[in-house]
């Protein structure tokens, strides 16, 4: 360690890895992992999301999962929650769509309207 700048660089790298232990304002990506979600392929979707987020070195994105969202016919479901709390829910997500959601929505802030689903009522 030859300078403070060098320490700061290392710090930022590791902070990404630990970001999910901090309650920071950022984008939250939630995948429904109820029984039907898993059956429909949600596990592959979450793996792809994780891979894409790491590969692109995205800061302040937290990837997590939840139980049944009550929209079994649209699984796999991916919900993207912005820092302001606004939510967009994508349905029938597959591996390819997951990659595009990361590129379009998380990186460029563009919602892919045709893949979104309306949420009927509250999530469970």
């Amino acid at each position, binding site marked *: 360690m030859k300078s403070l700048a060098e320490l700061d660089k290392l*710090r930022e790298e590791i902070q990404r890895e630990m970001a*999910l*232990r901090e309650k920071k304002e950022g984008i939250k990506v939630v995948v429904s992992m109820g*029984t039907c979600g898993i059956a429909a392929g949600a596990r592959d979707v979450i793996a792809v999301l994780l891979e894409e987020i790491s590969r692109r070195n995205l800061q302040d994105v937290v990837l997590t999962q939840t139980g049944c969202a009550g929209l079994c016919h649209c699984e796999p479901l991916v919900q993207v929650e912005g820092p302001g709390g606004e939510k967009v829910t994508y349905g029938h997500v597959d591996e390819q769509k997951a990659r595009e959601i990361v590129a379009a929505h998380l990186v460029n802030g563009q919602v892919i309207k045709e893949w979104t689903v309306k949420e009927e009522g509250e999530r469970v």
Partner: protein
Amino acid sequence: MRLYRAHVLVCAGAGCISSGCQAVKNALLENIERLGLQQEVKVVETGCMGPCDLGPVIVVYPEGVFYRQLKPSDAVEIAEEHLLKGRVVRHLLYQPAESATPATTFEQIDFFKKQTRIALRNTGIINPESVEEYIARDGYRALGKALSEMTPAQVLECIKRSGLRGRGGAGFPTGLKWEFTARAPGDTKYVVCNADEGDPGAFMDRSIIEGDPHTVLEGMAICGYAIGARQGYVYVRAEYPLAVERLELAIARARRYGLLGDNIFGTDFSFDVEIRVGAGAFVCGEETALLASIEGRRGEPRPRPPFPAVQGLWGKPTVINNVETWANVPPIILNGADWFASIGTEKSKGTKVFALAGKVNNTGLVEVPMGTTLREIIYEIGGGIPGGKQFKAVQTGGPSGGCIPASHLDVPVDYESLTGLGAIMGSGGMIVLDETTCMVDLARFFLEFVQDESCGKCSPCRIGTRRMLEILERIIKGQGRDGDIELLEELGRNIKSSALCGLGQTAPNPVLSTIRHFRAEYAAHIYDKKCPAGVCKDLIVYTISEEKCNGCGRCALVCPARAIVGEKKKAHRIDVEKCIRCGTCMEKCKFMAIYTM
């Protein structure tokens, strides 16, 4: 660098280790692997999270879900439900006593909510074996800042202005201590960390080293820069092998990154740290005894002055500070003196870590701003007294400290107010006592401890505390005499003023403070031969209630002393002369007819 979508933090502090966290961790790992989640979920071992009586505890991020009292079978359920399917396992959450709904995340739990963590900022949050995780939490930035942006004098000034005082007992201003050493003549100077932690019941220093060892190293290095020292020593007691191991590892990793050793951060400042393992006698925590022990001599105190600041290790100027004091240094440098001075009270700045123990619902480690009241600590964080019992007093400061009765529960905790009540802050042991504690017996316990630990070098301490102990033992046996209380007070005052070191100078405190606040309890033992709390065995009288006793004879049958007489179907009677106070009869009576007084 791999990203994970969940981090599972498993507490591996001393409390959780003893309640079986290793088996829980193994079960978690096995099941994560079985479910194929090892690429997505990371398991991290941390130091003590605080609520030790709820152990083993884990926290699952990013949600921060807090699970407690886990068994290995619970780990299976958490892996299958939470980690795989994202469903919180409700029955493993913490259930606050007064609320119907369980708390999901630890932020919702009063125990955590009311705390301000500075010294414990990383403990229970990072993996203590990873210097990288420490760095991610701004570790070594304070050292970097000091070396590249501040002069040694500015570092001294910052610590002085922050108002930080020693957390090892006496509360001496830390900046002033450093300044004495900085100004002392001589080129060779030393920095020492006191991790002896001899107070029975205290474990915060251990938890800091086990949970966040780098903060101590960083604090010491900053001091080394400020005073012109290039060598530091950490004196740890041998009973803390895990602390020693983690510290060794931390030193090695810090060296590898060039954060210890030569030319740190590319400057001409060099600093290194070595560990010394102590024998673990209480008196070895006293600073002059500790230094003697590091030098390889017997751990015996010597008179001060000269103070270690001027003549310490091998006669060289030496700064010696407590573990918790060191843990406060990096955040002060990083956030500034004003930030630190804005927390706490007029004369006691910052926070204090307490090891909350005894008759209180939530025991464990808590860190609160100075000035928090005892009531807040015991009732809001500690959750009050279990079993519907009455609060009686709180003992602070260990064997050098004293008791504070219920009438002073609203006292703000700082150095001066505790001293004013005849107790002290000490290193932060806080034992809650309820109505079933006998104050005379408690005083005896601490006196017995210091009597055993006295090094014997000076007579007031060696002989004086022996005399006090004998008197207390007599009182407890029911042989107390008129004038005993006054005699204890006189002896106590004399020992305090004439003993050579802090051990003897504070040894009478538990006795004097219990006399001060609970004089009537001493009087009851001496004059009425009664122990109001029902603890002192020789003073308990077993009696049978004439109304409740139906003469079944069960008690007489089990009495080993044949002390119970009575005709069948008529009230029985205990012969006090014969009774050996074993309590067997009371246990056996189905009609609650036998009671003590």
